[in-house]
């Protein structure tokens, strides 16, 4: 009989091991809570860290999107042998706007007048030309000259531009209106004054129908441009409708440096693609003759920032999980020491070392699982609250949240190994003289 009983070693069914562990946890909920607190906090921080990494990453991407280039400059590589019509196909603006990502596009060029350009708020009667002031503008775009007269005179560059250009630079008006298709069609002698020029000329109230003389040609100032992007030089320039400029002074003379260009405003992030497509819109047969310029974007910097952020949060997450694991290990260790009489009793009534090992690890893993579930929920809640407080969009990857409870269970299992080995080595004879706490 003894032989038969020896040949049948005691055994613990896996379901019973889990059941015993669950019963032990439920018997002492406060102890279970303290034990799983480490995992809870560890997993919560892990999920929060990863969630914050993705949320902050999304926010960084969004912030950088506002700094992505939104303007594309296009010009011709070769200079035409003689002044001719604007070297861009008719209906270019409409064709460019048909491209995905293009908001506005327009042609512009600096006027290079043979004679000094005189800009005066009030013309001197019968004074075509006159004794010169200082010749040439500050940027050397023309030999413009301001004739002293009763009104204020200043030197300033003059730009010929299509209405699409004004949309492309997002021109904002301090007062007045922009010129449009009607002004183009009728070659209206109107112009826009940049805010700097207008201030220099003393033009502030357009209700007085202020006019400027450009090379003695009168133009009514219909608007004062107070803000522009992409081509901020218009703030200290006078802008004429391109059709009017062509009618008055002829087509742009490329040899004189009046190279017409196209400015395109795109949606954030679309500049690169538009820059690749636009040459084909302008010249289908010779797109290589088109020069495209896009300012460098912050994409690489964004990727570096994102990479640094993600790796920082990853490290923080893993460190917190490791701390949680150590925490559960220490509490489990204390718990096992406190319950040594119980494990001694179990050994005395037939439990093998491996049964005690399985019991403690099961308990620890279940506590880890509970901590993981609660921690993942807490982590998601923290991410949502933080994101809402900052006005960000919370981004939580399912791959970081869903396996978190299993991660907690794994951490608990890992944390339970050493305490379980200690429990399995308990000698029943040494512990049975103590009172059972459980």
């Amino acid at each position, binding site marked *: *009989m*003894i*032989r038969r*009983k*020896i*040949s*049948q*070693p*005691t*055994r*613990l*069914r896996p379901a*019973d091991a889990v*059941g*015993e562990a669950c*019963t032990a946890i439920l*018997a*002492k909920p406060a102890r279970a809570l303290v034990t799983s607190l480490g995992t809870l906090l560890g997993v919560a921080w892990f999920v929060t860290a990863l969630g914050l990494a993705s949320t902050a990453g999304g926010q960084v991407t969004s912030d950088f999107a506002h700094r992505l280039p939104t303007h594309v400059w296009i010009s011709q590589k070769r200079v035409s042998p003689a002044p001719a019509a604007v070297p861009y196909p008719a209906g270019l603006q409409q064709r460019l706007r048909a491209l995905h990502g293009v908001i506005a596009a327009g042609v512009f060029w600096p006027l290079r007048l043979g004679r000094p350009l005189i800009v005066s708020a009030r013309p001197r009667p019968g004074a075509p030309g006159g004794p010169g002031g200082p010749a040439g503008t500050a940027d050397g775009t023309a030999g413009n000259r301001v004739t002293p007269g009763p009104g204020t005179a200043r030197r300033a560059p003059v730009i010929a531009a299509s209405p699409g250009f004004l949309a492309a630079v997002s021109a904002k008006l301090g007062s007045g209106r922009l010129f449009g298709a009607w002004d183009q069609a009728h070659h209206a002698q109107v112009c826009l004054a940049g805010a700097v020029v207008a201030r220099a000329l003393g033009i502030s109230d357009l209700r007085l129908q202020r006019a400027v003389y450009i090379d003695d040609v009168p133009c009514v100032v219909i608007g004062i441009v107070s803000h522009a992007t992409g081509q901020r030089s218009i703030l200290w320039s006078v802008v004429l409708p391109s059709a009017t400029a062509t009618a008055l002074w002829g087509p742009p003379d490329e040899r004189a440096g009046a190279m017409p260009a196209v400015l395109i405003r795109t949606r954030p992030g679309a500049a690169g693609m538009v820059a690749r497509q636009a040459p084909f819109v302008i010249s289908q047969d010779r797109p290589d003759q088109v020069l495209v310029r896009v300012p460098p974007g912050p994409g690489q910097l964004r990727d570096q920032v994102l990479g640094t952020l993600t790796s920082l949060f990853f490290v923080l997450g893993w460190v917190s999980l490791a701390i949680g694991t150590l925490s559960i290990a220490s509490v489990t260790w204390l718990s096992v020491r406190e319950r040594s*009489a*119980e494990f001694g*009793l*179990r*050994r*005395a*009534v*037939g*439990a*093998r*070392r491996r*049964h005690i090992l399985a019991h403690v690890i099961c308990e620890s893993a279940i506590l880890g699982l509970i901590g993981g579930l609660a921690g993942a929920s807490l982590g998601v809640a923290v991410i949502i609250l933080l994101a809402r407080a900052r006005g960000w969009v919370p981004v939580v990857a399912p791959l970081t949240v869903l396996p978190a409870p299993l991660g907690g269970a794994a951490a608990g299992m890992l944390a339970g190994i050493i305490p379980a080995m200690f429990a399995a080595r308990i*000698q*029943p*004879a040494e512990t*049975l*003289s103590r*009172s*059972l*706490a*459980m």
Partner: protein
Amino acid sequence: MATESLSGRGAARQTRALQETLSGRGAARPTRALQETLSGRGAARQTRVLQETLTQPISRPSAHPLIELRGAGVTYPGRRSPALCTVDLAVRHGELVTLTGPAGSGKSTLLSVVGLLLRPTTGSYLLNGLDVTRLGDKDRTALRGRVIGSVFQRQQLLQSRSVLDNVMLPALYAGLRRQQRANVAAAALERVGMAHRMHALASELPAGEQQRVAVARAIAGNPSLLLCDDPTASLDQEAAAHVIGLLVGLHKAGTTVLIATRDQLAAAHSSRSLALGPASSGTFAEDLSP
């Protein structure tokens, strides 16, 4: 001791196997070697005796005493004086033996040795003729779980668990399903008259009832040997009488019972009463039986 006698007789392979078994190397290996040894091959007389003995039901009369200690002694590591020294003891099947002695005489240590909770550091222990001194942990645990029932000095109940859960505990490690465990435990509680409290928490019971539950836990696996370490120590007279009556009843039902006690009532009901002298004396005291 057993290894020496076996090697002296020159029993070839079987003897070597038994030697390996008794050397306690590994857990699975001793069992396998023991089974080989006990398979009947070989001519060693000791092996034959073991084989015959072990194939008999342990509760039936046998040529061997159920418990046989040969010069068994225990000295805890780091201590000079032994907790138990050189005890020679034999308890036959079906006996109710009480162990008496002053505090510190080694009664609990002796019961721990007999209950396979402690290995003797000197001498040997034969359980029904089988030297279990050097058996591996797995085999000793199997014997502890299936052959021996123990009632400890303190009740040692899991206080936050129900009475039923406590009594089911040994059956948990016998691999029984929950319903089977519950049936076994309920039957044991019935025997000790505690079936009506099976769903109560252990902590809710008075000391006397807790001790009866501890007895129920010890007998739930229907052990051949019941060891009780001062089972009436913390009980009042009435409760103590109840528990002693319970143990006497189990003895009459055929269970071999060994009780370490200072209770004269238990000694009065025993087949034999043995007095254990101070551990320092190094000898087993006299048989006080009439």
